[in-house]
């Protein structure tokens, strides 16, 4: 640089250099890394199968002291020491680690994508069942049969304990990608005090939508200060709108969001569902502002706990983690006496999906094995151990919830009538979301359509808007109308 005579020559050169280096690095790296997801390269399932020492990492959107604390505690304090002990008895040194996360699901998904893209990430990964198709399409995960081998997979006796519909939640295109980790179900929760004050029966099971709306009308007339029925809608609460609002009603109207390779567009069933929204938010049965503000869902929970909301359509999560007197975010001391629950009826008896009288929707997570793992057989062994009856029982020992295993459910849920109700009455008639790539976009279109109704659009207008949004994200040929 000392040699430069003209003022600024060296700095100009420096800048040009930076620019050129930057640009060439961009092209080189971008070419290599943009499509880094790559092909499904599960590799040899038997690699390192005989290792006498191995290291495995488990990750889950759970962290001690924070989100899903019990899940993290179970992995750290039970799964890991137990598994390492069992391996030690076989003369194998196992080092199992847990990488806790515990943030917003979208952020967790982003970080998993980045890890899997670069061939890194934990060996056993907990993902939402609805991501399975998307991750599979991206080459992030591979069918279990490819990762650990057909024989090893089919040899596991645990499959027999997991219902077919629940297994679907960890599958894509008919192939298993992982083991489901539990499931849930949606029902109508109602406040018995509110019902009693309005002169409604506290032991309540509606058999048609009309009965729900009538109950809401009664509450509105008898207790004007109470919000009769808060039906999840709008974009602010995201997937909760779709799962705890639109989709259960759609099932009650006799349609699945995706069936026979077609998405539900502006159809009779969709309009019927949106009409319910129109009735609820257009005639003051529900509070539209709760569906508009960012913290509306939290607030509707709080209001329910305070006896200010009559009915909520929610999953059993609401019972376990929201109004739970011990560790809920909106605890109700007298939950067991005051909170009632009823199955979601079809529009009219027999009009639901498959001619059902009652319907529900379910979700759940799945544990998958990272195709890049160095120890596929050991990872599979660990996964089987985590899903054994014994480990599953231990997982829900502290706070019961519906597991993926029938044998465990029968045993651990007996103390909780609500969860037993879900497991016995709801799960058999439930539906799962389609694990397809486009689902995320369709779900957003659904949320926007319900939001339009909350803001005052008619059901017909919202249905047209939904149809238009749908045409942006899926082929016109894959949309059912009429």
């Amino acid at each position, binding site marked *: *640089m*000392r040699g430069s005579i003209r*003022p600024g020559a*060296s*700095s100009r050169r*420096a800048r040009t250099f*930076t620019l050129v280096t*930057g*640009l060439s*690095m*961009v*092209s080189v*790296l*971008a070419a290599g890394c*943009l*499509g880094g*997801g*790559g*092909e499904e390269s599960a590799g040899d399932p038997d690699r390192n199968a005989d290792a006498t020492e191995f290291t495995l990492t488990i990750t889950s959107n759970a962290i001690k002291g924070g989100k899903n604390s019990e899940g993290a505690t179970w992995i750290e304090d039970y799964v890991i020491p137990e598994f390492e002990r069992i391996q030690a008895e076989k003369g194998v040194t196992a080092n199992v680690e847990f990488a806790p996360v515990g943030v917003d699901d*979208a*952020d967790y998904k*982003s970080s998993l*994508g980045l890890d899997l893209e670069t061939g890194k990430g934990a060996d056993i990964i907990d993902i939402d069942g609805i991501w399975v198709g*998307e*991750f599979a*399409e*991206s*080459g*992030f995960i591979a069918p279990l049969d490819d990762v650990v081998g057909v024989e090893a997979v089919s040899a596991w006796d645990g499959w027999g304990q997991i219902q077919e519909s629940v297994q679907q939640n960890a599958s894509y295109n008919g192939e298993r990608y992982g083991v489901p980790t539990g499931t849930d179900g949606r029902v109508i929760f109602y406040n018995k005090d509110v019902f009693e004050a309005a002169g409604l029966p506290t032991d309540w099971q509606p058999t048609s939508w009309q009965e729900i709306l009538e109950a809401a009308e009664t509450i509105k007339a008898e207790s004007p200060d109470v919000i009769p029925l808060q039906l999840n809608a*709008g*974009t*602010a609460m995201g997937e909760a709108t779709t799962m705890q609002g639109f989709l259960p009603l759609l099932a009650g109207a006799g349609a699945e969001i995706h069936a026979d390779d077609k998405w539900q567009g502006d159809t009779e069933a969709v309009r019927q569902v949106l009409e319910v929204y129109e009735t609820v938010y257009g005639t003051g049965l529900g509070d539209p*502002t709760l569906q*508009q*503000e*960012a*913290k509306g869902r939290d*607030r509707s929970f709080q*209001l329910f706990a305070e006896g200010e909301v009559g009915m909520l359509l929610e999953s059993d999560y609401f019972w376990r983690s929201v109004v739970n007197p011990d560790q809920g975010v909106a605890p109700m001391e007298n939950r067991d006496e005051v909170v009632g629950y009823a199955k979601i009826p079809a529009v009219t008896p027999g009009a639901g999906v498959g001619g059902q009288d009652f319907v529900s929707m379910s979700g759940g997570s799945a544990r998958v094995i990272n195709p890049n793992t160095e120890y596929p057989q050991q990872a599979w062994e660990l996964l089987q151990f985590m899903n054994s009856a014994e480990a599953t029982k231990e997982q829900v020992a502290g706070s019961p919830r519906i597991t993926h295993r029938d044998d465990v459910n029968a045993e651990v849920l007996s103390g909780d009538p609500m969860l037993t109700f879900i497991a016995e009455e709801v799960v058999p008639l439930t539906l799962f979301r389609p694990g397809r*790539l486009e689902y*995320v*976009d369709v779900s*957003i279109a659904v949320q926007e359509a319900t*939001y339009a109704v909350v*803001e005052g659009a008619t059901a017909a207008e919202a249905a047209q808007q939904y149809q238009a949004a749908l045409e942006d994200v899926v082929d016109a040929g894959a949309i059912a109308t009429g």
Partner: protein
Amino acid sequence: MPVPSRRDDAPATAVTGHADPGEAAFSAGAPRAVDSVGLGRARALLFVAPALLLIGVFLLFPALWTLYIGATNFERTGPNHVNPQVTWFDNYVDVLTDPSFYNSLWLTLLFVLFSAVIGQNGLGFWLAWSTRRLHRRVRRVVESLVLLAWILPSSVVAFLWIAMLDQRGGTLDALLGNPGTAWLVEYPMVAIIVFNTWRGTAFSMMLYSAALSSVPPSQLETARLAGATGGQTLRDVVFPHIRGHVLTNTLLITLWTFNDFGPFLITGGGPGDDTEIAAVYLYNTAIRDGDLGYSGAISLLILVANVVLALAYLRMLRRRDSS
């Protein structure tokens, strides 16, 4: 060595490119005197090198890469993730025909104009100007409160403002005695504008109180004796001294506000898309929808919008400077 003369009362003129020592020397036709302190150009470059290196690697490089992604259909997942194609300007065409882009651009301009250019600038200046008259202790209390709003982490202040504006039991409703106003639903833009004014005023206040100390007290005294009103004093005596600071400040807070993600933590961009300002639009595209190519294109367009604003400011304040 010729020493370029320099007026101490115009400290920020370097921003406008005038009257800084180096340039004065250069334009005076004295190439020998590139600097007045004998640092030397080679050493100067050495001084700049570490910062430039860090900026180049951790800012410029990802920036160019992001722009490159903006010319592809790359997504976070799915077939376009596995096999991304270079689609050149498709994303730009899509963004520029997307009504939500214009919605977010419009909201962002409102947000910047009212919360930064008017709100933070105005309130910050007012605080800097008028608190000089307060007792030192009182002044320190006021300043500390303003600074606290600026120092606290954004995830914390989000909760504070939700509690403030809550429909049921919120502090504001309680104070006004009219419970039931859902401020975040009925006046969402006003809410985030007021919020951001609260959040960022400290920066302007600090910058202006430093700037005001460069106004010679004798001139203020003269103005007072001449019977000038407060407005006249500000316009004729104070403003000429702090013009450069006004530019620096307005530019910085505009850029920061334009790309501020803070309101998302309060309104989530809602209700609907009523507060979907640029940063939120970008977040929804990149994180919620995973359309990375699309969000790369949006980034460039936001950059262009920022450049336009910056040039407009420069033009406005520079022209007056040279007149």
